């Protein structure tokens, strides 16, 4: 259904990788709906070539090169003088220094010299830094997505007022969960007059729905799975400590952690110190296409995050009919309904994870099947890509 010929500029940190399903599906959905999407990002080599990119102009750290860059780069802005002059005007109004305006003009050269836009959208709110007045300069609407880290973590490091300038120029907000929006209102002083639309992440449910599970907990060995970056936010250590309790309770289990990241040493060290070498595997290299099969071969998905926007993996696991235990970090408690479509335990609480696992082991099969069925139906009905596509179409048409 092609209904529009609007152009959207999407600002994200790096090109969309082949495995980044969230942005891939979002952009493809918008293109199918008739939008033209241009991605503004830093250059790297892992780009999915099916999208259209305009790479960021990056100022060198070396002063001499920097001067040359500005000297030869800024005249390029002469082909769009009105955008440049509007940028300078609004930047000066917002109190920016001359140096910061020149830097801003250069850094945003890829946007300012690009095609006309109807909306410029920040894929993460952090991308709005240094680009607060760019919407006014481009004479287009300015919108952003609240995803998790940008609202929950970044402002703690950079000051709770770090988005105040951005709020002044923002037209619309997309949030993936109510919880993030609440944080933005209460902690970050998001004005209530900015239009907000909640569009939860969605998944291609067809890839995950398949074989119906007839039996959940295998009598010989409980198979537990976690999927996520090896990063402190994912709370893997709390899961490992819970599983140590499970081992001490004499339960036979296998726990596979799928993901890569800078905390590999931390996870391996923790499992070794907890004496879980033979029960826990860390699998770094698994392609996204193998995930459905992986989910079918496990009984329980454990998602113990301490910080999480929404948790796409948890949606996928529910669609695949897995039983899910998640922490109550931000959007996860909206993703899974406690004791209806899975179980929600307090974050940073290994004892509660262990207790929940033991409780599930003692639950009757039909009860487990019922929970799995409810979770699957809810994901199919509420979190399918098609619904997300139409929600984004409305968001960018508004």
């Amino acid at each position, binding site marked *: 259904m092609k209904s529009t010929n609007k152009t959207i500029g999407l600002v994200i940190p790096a090109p969309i990788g082949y495995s980044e399903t969230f942005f891939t599906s979002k952009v493809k959905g918008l293109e199918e709906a008739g939008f033209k999407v241009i991605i503004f990002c830093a250059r790297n080599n892992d780009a999915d070539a099916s999208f259209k990119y305009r790479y960021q102009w990056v100022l060198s750290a070396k002063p001499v090169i920097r001067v040359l860059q500005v000297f030869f780069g800024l005249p390029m802005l002469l082909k769009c003088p009105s955008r440049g002059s509007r940028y300078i005007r609004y930047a000066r109004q917002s109190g920016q220094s001359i140096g910061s305006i020149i830097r801003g003009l250069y850094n945003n050269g890829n946007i300012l010299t690009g095609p006309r836009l109807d909306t410029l959208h920040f894929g993460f709110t952090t991308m709005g830094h240094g680009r607060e007045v760019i919407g006014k300069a481009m004479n287009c609407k300015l919108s952003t997505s609240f995803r998790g880290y940008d609202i929950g973590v970044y402002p703690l490091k950079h000051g709770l007022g770090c988005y105040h300038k951005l709020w002044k120029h923002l037209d619309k907000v997309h949030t993936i969960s109510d919880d993030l929006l609440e944080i933005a209102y209460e902690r970050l002083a998001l004005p209530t007059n900015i239009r907000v639309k909640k569009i939860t992440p969605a998944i291609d449910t067809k890839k995950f729905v398949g074989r119906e599970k007839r039996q959940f907990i295998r009598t010989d060995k409980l198979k537990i799975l976690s999927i996520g970056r090896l990063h*402190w936010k994912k709370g893997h*250590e709390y899961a490992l400590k819970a599983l140590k309790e499970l081992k001490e309770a004499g339960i036979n289990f296998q726990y596979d952690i799928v993901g890569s990241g800078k905390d590999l*040493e*931390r996870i391996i*060290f923790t499992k070794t*110190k907890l004496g879980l070498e033979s029960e826990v595997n860390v699998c770094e290299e698994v392609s996204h296409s193998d995930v459905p099969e992986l989910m079918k071969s496990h009984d329980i998905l454990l998602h113990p995050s301490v*910080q999480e926007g929404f948790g796409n993996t948890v949606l996928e696991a529910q669609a695949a009919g897995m039983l899910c235990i998640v922490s109550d970090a931000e959007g996860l408690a909206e993703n899974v309904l406690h004791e209806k479509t899975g179980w929600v335990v307090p974050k940073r609480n290994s004892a509660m994870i262990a207790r929940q696992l033991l409780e599930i082991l003692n639950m009757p099969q039909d009860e487990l099947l019922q929970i799995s069925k409810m979770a699957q139906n809810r994901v199919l009905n509420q979190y399918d890509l098609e619904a997300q596509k139409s929600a984004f179409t409305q968001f960018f048409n508004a």
Partner: protein
Amino acid sequence: MKVAVYSGKIPSTTFIERLIEGLSKEKELQIYLFGRLKNGEITYRNRVVTKSFKNTLGQILLALSYRILFFLKPNLWRKFKTARAYKATNLKEKLKDWGKVLPVVYSELDIFHLQWAKDLSNWIFLEELDVRVICSLRGAHINYSPLADDNLARSYQELFVKCSGFHAVSKAIMTEASQYGEIKARTEVIYSGLDLQKFTLKIKPKQINKLKIVSIGRAHWVKGYHYALDACKLLKDRNINFSYLIVGGETEELQYQVHDLNLASHVNFKSRLSISEVKKNIGDHDLLLLPSVGEGIANVVLESMALGTLVVSTDCGGMSEVIRDGENGFLVPIMNSEAIASRLEEITTMSEAKQRQICTTARQYIEQNHQEHSMITGMLDLYKDTTRFTFKSRD
């Protein structure tokens, strides 16, 4: 005897600088320091020779000047070329490497004492040039990096055999390193030592109103600060009045956790401090908490014990070789916030007399086992055993 104490950086970490300071008092030794000169002034004694560079350009110029000097030692150059097999690297990389290794080779050392095991693959070639390589077994390089990095573990298996000697900072780390080769016969456990004249015992009266806790160490997961913060939450829930200072930096993870657990009024962070400021911070607090999940032996614990500040430490690495639970400090299991919280709570109800007794015992323990001269004697014995060099007795 010519000994290089090599960490790659000048000045190095506090405990390596302490070793250099101690060794430089020995008349039989000529100490060599190589590597990149970091910001910050440092002066060494006469017997310390430094051959350093500040940046990449300096490194390349050093390489070229030493290449010319090597025309005076053609035999040594030939031996070097045979021992140091270069794979196909570009010229810049090769020159940078020369800037690092040529000053070392040219100095014709007796001992090359490498501080970080991960660097062993770069330096083991010195053995072929009749330089005895001694490797210190410290922290991350042994405790966790090889667990997650199979290539590193394999390289240890291959290289530990070739190394002339090892210095282990604790018995525990020697045992840990032994999984990569039979090294015990070539290893000396030499504990860190302090110059106790610089650490005055000052036992504080018990604070009735508020327990002031401090942790000191770089902001890294291995320090276990996230477990300490979970323990703080438990203390807060139990209405214990306390403050907690982490000296060593603030990570995004810790910031988030403090905010998430609503601990902002109880927890503060400070970035890295000088040695004298560290001592002051230890002295200003009632208790030093070491929540680490892995350590060799934490120097900050030795310093606290010497200064008369109570210590609560996790039972990680070699900490149980220093702390006798309830006698000269307190030990709790690793990765266990509940145990940390309970022990801290217990301390708030402990009598002042008992606390004084523990602090006094701790100081005595340090005086008996962690004096600088014991460390230096141990190191000299290790060098002696490795080279069969006969030392004159100390002055």
